[in-house]
């Protein structure tokens, strides 16, 4: 789990636009959201963790599917496109290199609900993406 997210975050930060702008939570200063352009991405447990075999018990090394949510936060509406495009450019179709595992290419999970939001109090725009991949034994 640790290695997969480390590879994901490193890939995200490989974009010149996003370098040093990846945080695990929404940034706050004295309980007030910070007005800045950045993205929020943090590790999550696999949403599928199974070899799908009827005859065996799943182990830690079983196939794992991860869905990482990435929230783009921007001080203006145009910033959503700039940061969102940078994230999609480095992630979509990319195969993460994780020691001892073989990963599938990163895909965007289609949203059912619309994704953009505006925080009137903090005057911040935000947009959510979900990226998904499988991690299997190498």
């Amino acid at each position, binding site marked *: 789990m640790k290695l997969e997210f480390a590879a994901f975050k490193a890939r995200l930060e490989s974009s010149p636009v996003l370098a040093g702008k990846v945080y695990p939570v*929404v940034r*706050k200063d004295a309980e007030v*959201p910070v007005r800045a352009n950045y993205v929020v991405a943090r590790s999550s447990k696999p949403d599928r963790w199974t070899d799908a075999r009827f005859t065996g018990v799943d182990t830690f090394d079983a196939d794992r*599917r991860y869905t990482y*949510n990435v*929230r783009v*936060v921007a001080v203006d509406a145009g910033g959503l496109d700039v940061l969102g495009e940078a994230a999609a450019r480095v992630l979509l179709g990319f195969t993460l290199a994780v020691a001892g595992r073989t990963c599938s290419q990163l*895909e965007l*999970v*289609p*949203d*059912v*609900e*619309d*994704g*953009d*939001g*505006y*925080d*009137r*109090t*903090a005057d*911040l725009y*935000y947009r*959510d993406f*979900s990226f*998904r991949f499988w991690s299997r034994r190498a």
Partner: protein
Amino acid sequence: MSDDFSELAALASDLGKVPPAAVKNVRKALEVTARSIKDDWREGAVVSGGYAETYAPSIDYDFQPDSEGVTVDIGPHLGKTAGASAGFLEDAPGNVQAPAQHAGRNALEANEDDFYQGLEIAVFEALGGIMEGG
């Protein structure tokens, strides 16, 4: 099964070619899945805490007129509750700190297997009826 919903869309178009006798059963199967998705979607929206209060009660399903098959539309029903909106997030509790809104997607994914199973049964029973009828 892929992780997106492209196969779901493809399957929907394939089912346009099943015998007319199956349409009644397919409609039943779709209604069961639609109801489950609606319930899960509402529940997910309430539990996540990231939606406006009026959002969850506005989620419903409707069968749409379709000359070639059966179509059901599931989701927020505009105007059903005061302030109900189709995913407009400005009123989301927590604003920028609100959790991502994936109740609909989670409900759809949770019911995907059930959807296929229901359709299999629907088509199987319809074909059985045709064979018995000679």
